[in-house]
């Protein structure tokens, strides 16, 4: 049992900015109290972190989290899916100990990421069994950046309750809206990357795909093609699989553009999930930039 905080806050950090969304309890739900955005002087995550990067991040966090000062708030922090990567493994047998599972994840992500194993910090979660295979959700974070972000949070006097990838935050936030007993997919657009998560009828994440964004006139078409291929690949990999709905999340303008692309390809329209619809109150900028992700973090962890 944990003590009940008086407020919840979501902090989204991407390469160029930091956004803090503060919610406070109102009746049975949550009310939007503040959204603060701070731009960073130099992009993060493109090279190994420096003391200057860390100091500028700490300063941005301090400035954006002024509304948190003096409050006992549950703070949930999200990092881009390019900094914390996720994958779902179908294993014949699950390694017995946490240590062995960690070693497996490090080996797996080191190969994918082309990084030394000790440069990664991994987490995993069992998702049960499917057709005799153990389904294991794994994540790996760039250790250097993870440590740097933690230090910056400490410098800004922020004690996070959780720190995770944007994909996990979104999935948990919209879980009750999306997971309705049928398979589905969530496509999320961030400034630097897009992320697709596909789940099965039991509500277990079965595919996670993250790709860097390539700016261009036909970017949304290109994303739609890749998403279509990934979903078809998942559905046809084994019998009995289906993806009934496609959900979209991201900044208002981008989601509208993507929805238009998918309109001609799907029987039913893609569903735009808006975290601001889950809270009372309205603030300028709550549907653009990093704000939807910060809100999702605050709501979902």
């Amino acid at each position, binding site marked *: *049992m*944990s*003590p009940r905080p008086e407020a919840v806050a979501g902090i989204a950090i991407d390469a160029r900015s930091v956004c803090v969304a503060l919610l406070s309890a109102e009746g049975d739900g949550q009310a939007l109290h503040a959204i603060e955005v701070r731009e960073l002087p130099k992009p993060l995550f493109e090279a190994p972190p420096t003391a200057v990067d860390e100091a500028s991040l700490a300063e941005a966090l301090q400035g954006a989290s002024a509304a948190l000062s003096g409050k006992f708030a*549950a703070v949930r*922090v999200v990092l881009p899916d390019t900094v*914390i990567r996720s994958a779902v493994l179908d294993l014949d047998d699950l390694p017995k100990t946490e240590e062995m599972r960690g070693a497996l994840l490090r080996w797996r992500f080191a190969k994918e990421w082309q990084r030394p194993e000790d440069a990664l*910090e991994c*987490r*995993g*979660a069992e*998702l*049960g069994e499917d057709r005799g295979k153990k389904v294991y*959700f794994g*994540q790996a*974070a760039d250790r250097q950046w*993870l440590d740097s972000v*933690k230090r910056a949070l400490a410098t800004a006097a922020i*004690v*996070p*309750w*959780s*720190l*995770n990838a944007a994909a*996990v935050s979104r*999935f*948990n936030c919209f*879980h009750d809206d999306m*997971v309705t007993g049928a398979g589905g997919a969530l496509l999320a657009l961030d400034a630097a990357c897009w992320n697709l998560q596909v789940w099965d009828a*039991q*509500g*277990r*994440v079965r595919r996670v795909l993250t790709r860097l964004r390539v700016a261009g006139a036909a970017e949304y078409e290109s994303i739609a093609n890749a998403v279509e291929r990934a979903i078809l690949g998942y559905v046809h990999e084994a019998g009995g699989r289906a993806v009934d709905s496609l959900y979209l999340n991201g900044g208002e303008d981008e989601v509208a553009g993507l929805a238009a692309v998918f309109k001609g390809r799907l029987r039913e329209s893609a569903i735009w999930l808006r975290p601001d619809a889950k809270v009372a109150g309205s603030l300028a900028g709550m549907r653009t930039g990093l704000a939807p992700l910060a809100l999702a973090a605050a709501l979902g962890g």
Partner: protein
Amino acid sequence: MKIATNFVRPAQRAVPAIAAAMAAVAVALIVWAAWLANDAAGLRGELPQLRTRLAHVEAQKPVSAVRLPPASELGEVRARVARINAAAQTKGLPTLALLDDLEKQLPRDAWLTSVHHRATQGEVVLVAAARRADPLSDFLLKLEDDPLFEEVMLVREAQAGEGAAVQYEIRLKVRT
């Protein structure tokens, strides 16, 4: 199925344990404080009785001033003590140590017939005897080499008759 991974150790999980520990410490401190208060109350209750006893004891205590003898008498006593100390003062080694040393130096076939230790003068007069003169000569030489003695002197050599024991009377000056 929500995903429950986390890249930080959630601080909030430790809060109940810390709160429980602090509550336990607080309860222990309260119990201790209550015990101390109770103890203090008991001691405070005994205070009037102890004060009464103290006053009673002080009232009964005899007032007696120690009378010293007059200064002339004290001076005489001091002088006597100094004389006795001077008389009792030995020069050099005590008798027990002297006998111990003589026992070590004395050859197997010789013996002591008398020892006179004038401790205040640091002088020893002894008579050693043996069947023949050789052991006594050895004894004399050993005493001359003995660092305890400053001076070794053969005072007299005697033999009562044919076949009787030879006797050496030796005077020693103890090194101070």
